[in-house]
């Protein structure tokens, strides 16, 4: 039995499937999955065609954190904790926006749950609308680039810091560009008692406007430009970062994606690119990313 079958309906090149497969492999399938409404649920849970080889539940868009907490409590009450770990797969919208209340409750009560945010940087299931984790300048259907607006305003909500502020024993970011790193982090999280938050960068082929073959290169560029810092916190301490050898300018990341194309045409586009570069520089400084 595969833990996540190849018959799911993701777009070719979708980052979600890569992330999910690595997480389930790392846990050797010994887990209970709670999934929020979103792309992953739609591509994998269709009646009679479930791709899941592990116990799986989808309830709503905004409650995966609480549902996972409930599973954890039930396993405790029924003395079945040896059956496996409780894992959440939730999109960035489910995590940073609508579900942040139940996630905060789960983290605050320190349930023994590994919460994985699959960050494809927008509400992709409903067709690429902006979420709290959509990066600045991104063209989404609710922040469309036009004559006076240049896509999403404001920066990505810092969910890593929000998770750390909850006093979690383990918080990390990761990227589908680095499979082994995902697996290592998940294994590590599984060994720690309490609430764990891991945010994985998972490119979306359609929403970002990239080719199916560019998933890994785009994810890698996000890391290489310092737009997606790959970091690890244990008990509030920054314990590890993935250093960047020669940091690349953000343009290299932006120019290969349709969601940023307007920035290279619009008269004020350069202004936004400069702001995005500033965010990358700040990230590099904050986490000391440059080698």
């Amino acid at each position, binding site marked *: 039995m595969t833990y996540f079958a190849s018959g799911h309906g993701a777009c070719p090149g979708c980052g979600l499937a890569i992330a999910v497969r690595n997480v389930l492999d790392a846990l050797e399938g010994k887990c209970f999955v709670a999934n929020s409404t979103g792309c992953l649920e739609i591509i994998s849970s269709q*009646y009679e065609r479930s791709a899941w080889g592990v116990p799986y*539940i989808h309830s709503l868009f905004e409650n995966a954190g609480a549902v996972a907490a409930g*599973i954890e*409590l*039930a396993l405790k*009450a029924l003395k079945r904790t040896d059956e496996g770990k409780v894992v959440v797969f939730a999109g960035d919208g489910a995590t940073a926006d609508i579900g942040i209340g139940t996630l905060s409750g789960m983290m605050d009560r320190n349930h023994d749950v590994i919460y994985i945010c699959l960050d494809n940087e927008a509400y992709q299931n409903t067709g690429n609308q902006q979420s709290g984790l959509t990066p600045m300048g991104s063209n989404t259907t609710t922040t469309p680039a036009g004559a006076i607006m240049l896509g999403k305003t404001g920066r990505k909500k810092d969910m890593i810091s929000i998770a750390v502020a909850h006093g979690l024993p383990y918080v990390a970011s990761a990227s589908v560009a680095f499979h082994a790193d995902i697996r290592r982090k998940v294994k590590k999280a599984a060994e720690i008692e309490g609430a764990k938050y891991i945010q994985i960068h998972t490119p979306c082929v359609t929403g970002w406007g990239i080719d199916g073959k560019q998933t890994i290169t785009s994810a890698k560029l996000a890391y290489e430009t310092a737009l997606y810092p790959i970091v690890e916190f244990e008990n509030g301490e920054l314990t590890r970062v993935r250093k960047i050898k020669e940091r690349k300018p953000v343009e290299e990341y932006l120019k290969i994606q349709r969601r940023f194309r307007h920035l290279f045409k619009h008269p004020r586009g350069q202004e936004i690119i400069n702001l995005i570069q500033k965010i990358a520089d700040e990230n590099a400084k904050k986490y000391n990313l440059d080698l």
Partner: protein
Amino acid sequence: MKKVVRGFYSIAHAVKLCKPNVIAAYPITPQTEIVENLAKMYSNGELEGCEYVTAESEFGAASILVGASAAGARTFTATCSQGLILMSEVLLNAAGMRLPIVLVNTNRALSAPLSIWNDHQDSMVLRDGGLIQIHVETNQEAHDMVPLAFKVAENSKVMLPFMINMDGFKLTHAYEPVDLLDQDTVDSFLPPYNPPVYMTTKNPLTFGCYAPPHCYTEFRVVMQRAMMRALDVLEETYREWAEVTGRDWGGHVVGEFLDDAELAIVSMGSLTGMVRDVVKELRKNGVKVGLLKIRTFRPFPAKQVKEALKNANKILVFERAVSFGYEGPVGIEVKSALFGLNPEFYSFAVGLGGRDVPREELMKIITDVYEGKVEQGFHFGTVKEFEEVIV
């Protein structure tokens, strides 16, 4: 053991005896003391095999129970009003997933205007979601219905959430003598929860799937069938309860003085006690009135309602809610159950937002209807002159 206790204690004590595995709590008046009583029991080590959790919201509380129930736990929560409405997305989802979560709703009016007092508007909003719903008249009845709720909800022919409605303040805060159950009685009646399917790594199943149009209806069909089966399961379980405890609450509906009643009065919840009182007094004076108390509201016992009311040529419904833009929701159900009989029909929304319903008011409405002084249709009970101001 008979003890004078308040309504919330009568619930908490019964919940404890049902040995739940997960209780999720979030406060809202007048429910709060139910979960506070349970918290105290938990903190004193009286809730063995149970995890008690304080959620970040009612939405979270209900969601926690969805996860717990799917993982095979017996689950409980209590709420009302804004809390129930905040839970609603989750509860309707639990119904679709066929999770037998039991909750007590201490009926309270909805905002706006803000009111903490009792009416039935909150539970009526959830009427169509697939929850079993019953209404109780007294704290003894509330107490007794808790083990019954678990037993019915968890019956493999049913597998649906179960909501016990009890009137906020009128019951929750009232002291009444309650014959409290003991563990042996409940154990002999309610077996441990043994779900037909649950989340386990030993047999990985998918819960809460996505259903394309070619099969969504099928899921709704089985839900409807389960609801209709619940009518029989409930009735059997009401009977079984009478055998085990000696307390016979009757079936879905309880009729009194109905055989020769010209005017039948329908009521639900704690108001019923007073209506019964008025009916008895009127009977003494030779007025041919009768009473029908509805306990089961969903599934709706249409057959029993029709049978009970078949002789009356006038029906009067008292209820604590309005279906805005139409009439009173209970009236609508009763009228539809009586299709073909065509009695004169009256319904009155009374006691909204906790407004006092004096005995004299009930008496007056009943006699006016009896004597033909009221027009048929839907009415509010006493209201002051009140002009809506639109500038």
